[in-house]
């Protein structure tokens, strides 16, 4: 409730009720409403503390480096997923598009003798085309995103397997530029914390998309379309054009991730990133972006992806059965969506 410049005595019991001090719970609700990334950030900090206490190796530079690398692929795919979920859509074809791009660029370079740069550009372009196809089906054929991407998930997976014959392209056959994303950068000297160039690429993607979402008109329109598409349309926003751009940009991000994936795995395999679909959605949801659209952002998603990997690494270092990780992630997803439902009921 805003207080006016000259506070008049409340005229009725209802107004008095509205003017009363907020309970601590309401304050939390308001804070989360304004900054939905707070709760995942708290969970991440808590997880790091607990896992370090359980096994001090968790906080070792090498373990942290590995954690960041292992997060990179899911985190990168989750950027595109965040964009699509912000428009109240969903993308089940993330993994399939990435694999198809991976196999195309690796095969072109290793078996068809096409220069690495050209192969990468063609692979990324395929990601753009695949994303645009999703977007076209959603906006022109008016199919629900769930159905569209469920269909293209099978289509792209099948094409990737048919094209590659189910065979991986081995790292030795790949040109250096293609595995460049796996090279380590050691800013603090040997034996300390390091990142790969792929991790840097992903970080740059986060910065660019984060900037576009929060600082440009396009970003506003993405939020508005997910928040209330009809209101956006009436405000003069070309909703279908925004949606098409979101799916296409997501495809571009998947294509670039395909390159990062080759560096990370050191091999182009049609069976990699098999559960990337659900992992990317999990990261987005745990990161506080609403599945109903219009709320959230990539910062939360990055934290969400880190949480998932921190639980995997932490629980394994603590010597706990892997099923406890699966169980915990399941609980986190449900808690995250419940919190989202709660904070959208915020009142003035």
């Amino acid at each position, binding site marked *: 409730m*805003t207080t006016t410049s000259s506070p008049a005595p409340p005229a009725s019991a209802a107004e008095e009720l509205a003017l009363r001090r907020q309970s601590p719970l309401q304050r939390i609700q308001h804070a989360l409403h304004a900054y939905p990334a707070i709760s995942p950030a708290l969970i991440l900090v808590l997880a790091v503390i607990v896992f370090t206490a359980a096994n001090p190796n968790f906080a070792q530079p090498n373990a942290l480096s590995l954690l960041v690398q292992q997060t990179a692929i899911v985190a990168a795919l989750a950027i595109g997923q965040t964009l699509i979920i912000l428009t109240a859509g969903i993308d089940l074809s993330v993994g399939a598009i990435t694999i198809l791009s991976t196999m195309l660029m690796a095969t072109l370079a290793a078996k068809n003798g096409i220069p690495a740069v050209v192969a990468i550009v063609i692979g990324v372009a395929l990601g753009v085309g695949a994303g645009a196809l999703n977007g076209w089906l959603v906006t022109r054929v008016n199919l629900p995103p769930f159905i569209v991407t469920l269909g293209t998930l099978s289509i792209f997976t099948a094409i990737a397997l048919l094209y590659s014959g189910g065979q991986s392209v081995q790292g030795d056959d790949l040109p250096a530029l293609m595995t460049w994303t796996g090279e380590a950068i050691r800013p603090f000297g040997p034996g300390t914390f390091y990142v790969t160039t792929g991790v840097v690429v992903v970080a740059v993607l986060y910065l660019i998309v984060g900037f576009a979402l929060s*600082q440009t008109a396009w970003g506003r329109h993405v939020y*508005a379309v997910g928040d209330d598409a009809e209101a956006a349309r009436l405000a003069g926003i070309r909703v279908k054009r925004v949606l098409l751009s979101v799916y296409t940009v997501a495809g571009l991000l998947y294509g670039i991730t395909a390159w990062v994936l080759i560096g990370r795995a050191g091999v182009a395999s049609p069976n990699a990133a098999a559960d990337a679909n659900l992992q990317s959605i999990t990261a987005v949801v745990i990161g506080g972006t609403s599945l109903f659209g*219009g709320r959230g952002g990539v910062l939360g998603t990055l934290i969400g992806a880190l949480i998932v990997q921190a639980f995997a690494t932490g629980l394994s270092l603590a010597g706990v059965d892997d099923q406890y990780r699966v169980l915990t992630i399941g609980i986190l997803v449900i808690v995250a969506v419940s919190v989202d439902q709660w904070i959208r009921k915020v009142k003035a």
Partner: protein
Amino acid sequence: MSTPYHPELNPEFNADQVSTSQTREDRQPVLQARGLVKTYGKVVGLDGVDLEVYPGEVLAVIGDNGAGKSTLIKALTGAVVPDAGELRLDGKVVSFKRPQDARDAGIETVYQTLAVAPALDIASNLYLGREERRPGVLGSVFRMLDKKGMKKRAGESVKRLGIQTIQDMGQAVETLSGGQRQAVAVARAAAFGSKLVVLDEPTAALGVKEGNLVLSMIEQLRDSGMPVILISHNMPHVWQVADRIHVQRLGRRAAVITPKTHTMGEGVAIMTGAVTVLPKDQEALVR
């Protein structure tokens, strides 16, 4: 000139009731519709409707459910393309294919379904679809929004309409009351409409106090010289703010009356077809 739907004479109304001060022959309408027709299959939405709005007036449009109010408004604002008829804006023939065309021409509409994005803040909603960028390289190359400037100007737009209860332009719209949300929508229309503001049932979902807030905003708008079309079911509200009242009935204009010449009861009687108005009694008000 349209003919009345029921041609029989009714003695209750005569030309003497219409004061001569209401003649507008010397003034050109801002927006003029002639013979608008819109059918949906066999259902007739508009059956040759005429309408005109003059500078600096509030024209109310009343009518029973199904009389064609909504279709009429949609036809005026580009949400529906009429099958036949002509629209003139400042005397020039215009045709709107989509809402954006009408908006580009200077006609702003506040829709009954509040067209605001609840999770976005007030300033973002005011500038939704017409965001302003920062000057220089930041704006032209990096496409950065001028958030500060938009917030400041949004505050000025809201204040200009005499709204005191909204202070923080960074507040999400969903934290506002119904009246405050309506105020945001009206403020947006007022800020960007250069020719005409159309308000579709702006007080329908509001309490007495909030309804009055919106009415005073409408008066502010009119006093600033902006013509307003107000669609409303609420007769006391219409009689409070309207300069002229367009009565829509069975897809046609049944009459144009004023709060001075007709009572609410008479207005409702025309609306429901209990009485009809002859064209000769209408000339002074229509033209």
